[in-house]
């Protein structure tokens, strides 16, 4: 009899679960526990030198060349934030496509971050090799979202895409086109960033969401370690040595800007 009761209870539980699973909204405030986590907001602020990046505007890069930007897309992945006690929080399924638009900012919100004071952030510009060789992916790696950022004839994600024009380009339309990727081997184009918050901490709690501002300076792409000669390197559309050269240049693309608690 007790067994029967258990089974009836289990049946009801199963039924209940099924009803729940078909509901659109899975959040049930009644069962919410006092939160030990919070959120951290990241802004990838696209700039050209000290100015906010605007499409269609003429900029002079550090080599003295005039450039105009019309497209800027890149992947940020594998985000890890480190607390002042050196414990870390790793975002799961951490793949974000940032597309520059009129708002000029790529906002990524990390959720379910354990409460605490965070002093630094690590991430990758690009997509790790595993996700380039494991078939159809979801989220920002779904081939619909990534339609503009995936080579379909030689599988692999474009990690960084910068398009525009420069009078110095040897192209008939003066085009600049950098489609940078390559997930393995000597010419791999992912670059890792490890940025401290300059001695300050992002204090994550259930009630406050700190806002980290990161500077993404497109000017860096043209300069170091190799000053790009735009009459030669105006179009790089596939992985290889030339792609790696651009990737080396964007290894200092992103830096800490400021932090609001």
């Amino acid at each position, binding site marked *: 009899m007790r*067994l*029967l009761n258990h*089974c009836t209870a*289990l*049946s009801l539980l*199963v*039924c209940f679960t*099924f*009803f729940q699973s*078909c509901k659109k909204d899975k959040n049930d405030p009644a069962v919410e526990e006092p939160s030990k986590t919070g959120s951290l907001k990241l802004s990838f602020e696209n700039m050209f030198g000290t100015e906010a990046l605007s499409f269609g505007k003429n900029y002079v890069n550090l080599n003295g060349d005039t450039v105009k930007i019309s497209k800027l897309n890149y992947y940020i992945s594998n985000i890890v934030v480190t607390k002042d006690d050196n414990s870390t929080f790793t975002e799961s399924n951490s793949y974000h496509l940032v597309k520059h638009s009129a708002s000029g900012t790529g906002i990524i919100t990390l959720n379910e971050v354990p409460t605490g004071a965070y002093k630094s952030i690590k991430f990758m510009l690009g997509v790790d090799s595993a996700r*380039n*060789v*494991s*078939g*159809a*992916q*979801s989220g920002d790696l*779904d*081939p*619909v*979202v990534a*339609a503009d950022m*995936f080579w*379909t*004839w*030689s*599988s*692999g994600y474009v990690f960084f895409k910068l398009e525009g024009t420069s009078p110095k380009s040897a192209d008939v339309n003066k085009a600049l086109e950098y489609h940078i990727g390559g997930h393995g081997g000597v010419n791999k184009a992912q670059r890792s960033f490890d940025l401290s918050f300059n001695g300050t901490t992002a204090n994550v709690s259930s009630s406050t969401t700190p806002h980290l501002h990161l500077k993404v300076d497109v000017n860096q792409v043209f300069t170091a370690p190799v000053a790009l000669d735009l009459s030669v390197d105006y179009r790089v559309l596939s992985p*290889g040595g030339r792609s790696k050269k651009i990737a080396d240049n964007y290894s200092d693309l992103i830096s800490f800007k400021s932090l609001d608690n």
Partner: protein
Amino acid sequence: MRFKLHIAFLLTAFTLISCTVDPTVSPVVNTNELSEIVPESWPQPVYNFANNKISAEKFTLGRALFYEPMLSIDNTISCGSCHQRGAAFANAGHRVSHGVTKDGVELEGIRNAPGLFNLTWHPYFMHDGGINHIEVQPLGPITNPIEMAETMPHVIAKLQASAKYKTLFKNAFDSDEITGERMLKALAQFMGLMYSYNSKYDYVKRGKSKFTEPEKKGYDLFLTNCNACHAEPLFSDFKFRSNGLPARAGVVDHGHEIISRDTLDRNKFKTPSLRNLEATAPYMHNGCFETLEECLDHYTNGIDALANPDPLLRNRLVLNADEKRFIIAFLNTLNDREFINNKRFDEEK
């Protein structure tokens, strides 16, 4: 036991009540027929469905997508247009295939559509090996401007506007959200389940049949002359090699070099399987030969020294007319009529 049944019944009943299923879509194929197959003594496949659980509903969706002309920009070309079941999913009678029509001109490719079977053993796809996974393979032809000339956002928008696909996706994924990932998983499942392992050769290997004398002689000659590249039991080593085909007038195709950017890979293409040759003519990556006799004559007399031929072919094969006939007799034991005639892979009418 009764209690378990009781729970199972309740579970089923409540699922049916709480998540209604559109009854207008015809019933799916029998689940019992659908499973991963690794024939005895075959190597482990590269793709094992671990992240793409096999179900009749997903197979049914994959089949609908495979025959779906909405995958092309002008809604005229489906995967099945160039990969036909009766041709072991090659393009019957076509040296190269036709793509969509642009500006009144039917576009034409430069390579022969390969047969599709035993794809889960392929470490990469396309003749040049450019695509690294069965799930992302369809992105190649869908977005190629001379094949289907589409974009994934547009294809998905078309599918999302279709009541039929809303239902098919819901059946397959328990939610009617139509994403690129889901579409590609379903297609991979349909194509990955195209197994061909029931040719006479396979029956001989299982001890259920016997080669005739010419077939046996041909098999021995095959092992000496062909198996180094067309390795049993898949009849491909999946390596990139040039078989010394002379370049076709007006066609530049450097094969695997396009992908590897290594001039040593010039004119190299993935070794094709020799299964189902009765259905897949014309032969070679560019469809230049109509018959198996022509193919063998190429290996004995036609290797072009300027086409970067594989070291194994530089001295050409030495085979007399009888030996060629025996090899062809053996090759004909690799035809799998059970596969070629399997209507499970046909478009649902």
